[in-house]
């Protein structure tokens, strides 16, 4: 896979100082004042850069360097504010900052895409807003008052990460990577808008953050399908799912009492009974398959039974295992933070689906980044509901991750490989 021209570099060790985390917002204030000043200059530079790049077909090196530095500094400041990094970033874009960007030198760009860069960047900025909110995505450094930041993936991850870091002096890996993912995509979007690159931002979580952990969670996703999409089924995708929604609703009527019985059994026995586990796992798989179809993560029309291995975007649910009775007893309050994140991931999946709908209708293919972003959202949601339904005692993992051999959490799509060759695992 080609290396992207704008890359996030993460060397953060997850250690956090409690006091620094507690006062993080206040500590970041001077950096934001400086970022605001820098933004004004960057705006003027961006206008000049746009005109010159349009005329010459390439960004001038000094302007490129200045704007790249601006984007790097903004990323560092937001990484600090949003708990993705520990050290205070200062007033210059330090090279050794634990969350930094690498931006390639200026390259030739198509004048057409330069001319229409602003409208072209709008879908990416929309997705960036869903990921990072209007605060971390706003490189002007000005506060926005009421914004949707707190409901974005980044906002929710920061909120939960703050409590975790204050309590344990350590940032959870998953939440840090979720924040890094949002920052990475925002940085790519702004770099594209500011003409630092003509490569469209990729929302692929697997390439956005370096050094993703390999995991083998009890509830995991394997992507076996290609990116081909039938235009006809894409056009009518929502309506084609109507029968599935009816079946899901009817199934849910049985799932609620089954989940209650399962909870009582797990409380007494310390594990889920096999028949109930099988029934609830089938429901979860079916719900996942339908969502994958609706959100264009998968192409084929799913079956109605939730049978294992019946869909190319496969949700794998491990066999029942012993669970701590205390965590079973308090499962409902315990799952609430995960539901918050699942909600944010749900927004990401929905927006990726809307953008992917247009792309797939036009090209007959789903962009890899949007497909993987959607798959990440669906995987997290499935893990959350699996945890709620006592299918596992493992808490949902909040960030993107790789598959631990031989099974994968998320795998790269075969579209990147020559026809006929097996899909390449990242």
């Amino acid at each position, binding site marked *: 896979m080609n290396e992207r021209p704008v890359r996030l570099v993460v060397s953060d060790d997850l250690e956090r100082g409690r006091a620094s985390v507690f006062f993080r917002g206040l500590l970041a204030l001077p950096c934001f004042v400086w970022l605001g000043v820098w933004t004004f200059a960057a705006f003027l530079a961006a206008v000049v850069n746009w005109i010159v790049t349009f005329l010459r077909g390439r960004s001038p090196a000094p302007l490129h360097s200045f704007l790249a530095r601006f984007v790097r500094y903004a990323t560092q400041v937001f990484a600090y504010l949003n708990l993705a990094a520990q050290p205070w970033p200062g007033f210059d874009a330090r090279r050794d900052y634990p969350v930094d960007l690498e931006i390639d030198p200026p390259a030739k760009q198509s004048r057409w895409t330069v001319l229409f860069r602003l409208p072209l960047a709008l879908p990416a900025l929309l997705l960036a807003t869903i990921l990072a909110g209007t605060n971390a995505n706003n490189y002007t450094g000005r506060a926005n008052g009421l914004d949707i930041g707190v409901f974005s993936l980044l906002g929710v991850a920061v909120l939960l990460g703050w409590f975790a870091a204050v309590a344990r002096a350590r940032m959870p890996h998953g939440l840090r990577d979720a924040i890094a993912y949002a920052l990475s995509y925002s940085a790519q979007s702004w770099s594209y808008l500011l003409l630092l690159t003509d490569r469209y931002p990729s929302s692929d979580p697997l390439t956005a953050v370096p050094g993703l952990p390999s995991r083998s969670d009890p509830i995991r996703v394997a992507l076996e399908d290609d990116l081909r999409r*039938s235009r*006809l*089924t894409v*056009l*009518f995708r929502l*309506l*084609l799912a*109507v*029968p599935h929604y*009816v079946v899901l609703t009817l199934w849910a009527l049985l799932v609620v009492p089954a989940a209650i019985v399962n909870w009582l059994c797990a409380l007494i026995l310390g594990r889920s009974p096999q028949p109930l586990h099988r029934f609830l796992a089938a429901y979860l798989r079916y719900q996942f*398959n339908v969502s994958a179809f609706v959100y264009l993560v*998968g*192409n*084929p*029309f*799913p*079956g*109605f*039974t939730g049978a294992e291995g*019946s*869909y*190319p975007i496969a949700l794998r649910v491990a066999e029942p295992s012993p669970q701590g009775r205390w965590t079973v007893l308090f499962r409902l309050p315990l799952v609430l933070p995960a539901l918050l994140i699942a909600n944010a991931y749900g927004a990401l999946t929905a927006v990726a689906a809307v953008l992917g709908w247009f792309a797939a209708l036009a090209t007959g293919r789903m962009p890899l980044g949007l497909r993987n972003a959607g798959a990440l959202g669906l995987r997290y949601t499935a893990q959350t509901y699996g945890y709620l339904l006592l299918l596992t005692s493992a808490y949902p993992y909040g960030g993107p991750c790789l598959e631990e051999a031989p099974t994968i959490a998320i795998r790269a799509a075969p579209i990147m490989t020559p026809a006929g060759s097996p899909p390449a695992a990242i």
Partner: protein
Amino acid sequence: MSRRAPAALAARSPGSDDSTGAIGAPRHPSRLLLLALIGGGVMWIVAAHYLSASTVPSGLHLPHVSASSLFSRSFLRRSASYQRFLDIDGLLGEMALLLALGLYAWRGHRFMRESAAGRIGTGILLGMLGFAIVWIVELPFGLAGVWWERRHHISHQGYVTWIVQSFFSLGGLFLFVSLALLVAMGLAGVLRRWWWAVAAPVFVGLSLLFTFLTPYLISRTTPLRDPQLLAVARRLQDREGVAHVKIVVQHVDRYTTAPNAESGGLGPTRTVILWNTLLNGRFDERGIEFVIAHELGHLAHDHPLKGVGWAALFLVPAAALIALLTRRRGGLARPEAVPLALFVLVALQLLAAPLQNVASRREEAEADWSALRATRDPAAARQAFRDLAVTSLADPDPPTWTYVLYDSHPTIVQRVAMVYAWEARSRRR
């Protein structure tokens, strides 16, 4: 409701159908089968005779009424031109529909690769995609119709609104198709060639259920609140012998200016639905009274139930024919037979439309007759028919081909002629 519905006081007929089915004739027809076919044919004719029985006196002589005696020349020219465009648009749409479904029947099985579902799930997908293609193919013709209606101030619906609404209304259709295919393919998996013999009664049952629920499926309705009209409706219910019928108003003025009314439901759900475009001052109270009486006439003569009967008469042979014709594709148990089944079903529906229109026109005439007897106000009836034609630009005397293919109601001229006939008959008495 027919394409000429604005001019009509339509009974909501559940009769049109939907099902899938097939004939499972043995490979070598035996005498027993022949006898069964003959017996079935006789039963069909007897049932059709019973269903088409009417209280309109047989041999009633309709006097000749000239359209020009009822309407101005300019109106006749305008309405003929208006209807001609819609009729031709509709005909072209149907031809395109048949062509598209024919191609889909031929190549539609290729969409099986878009399914990860089992046999029935894949069949459901193919069924839904068939109707999705129908929607795409009919879109330009539908838009042309909206453009024409807007141009004549019959509709104020925006193009985008129309597209969005028709798109999302596919959701209900998809659900229905899924249910029908679940029944048909499920039975075909068990009963093989004879699935239709069980499926047809199931579909008739569903049709009955749908007829019962129809009034609840109509959106944007409120109870009739006008005390005068309510008193009129109660009086008419007594006269026509139908008690406990709800009268509601459907708010359609956002979309159309055309007036209309409908009736539907069975037993406790029997309802008369008046479009609010009928109550906006263009019709006088006597005219509205006649309209209500007409709709009550449908209910008094059990037309909704008869509609289910007609549906049964269509469904049984249609299901058998589908079963027979899909055998080359392995029968309806196999998903690849679904596109062909759709084509056969739609083709049969189009072929049966003239026959269904005959039955529907008889029921409409009976409802008119019933209304005349209840109101005893022929002048109001004549005026109501004239107003209906003028406000909806209905051609009072359409060409024969459109009358046969599309008109589920007698023409305005025929309806006015019936009013004269009733008048003459009551004078003789």
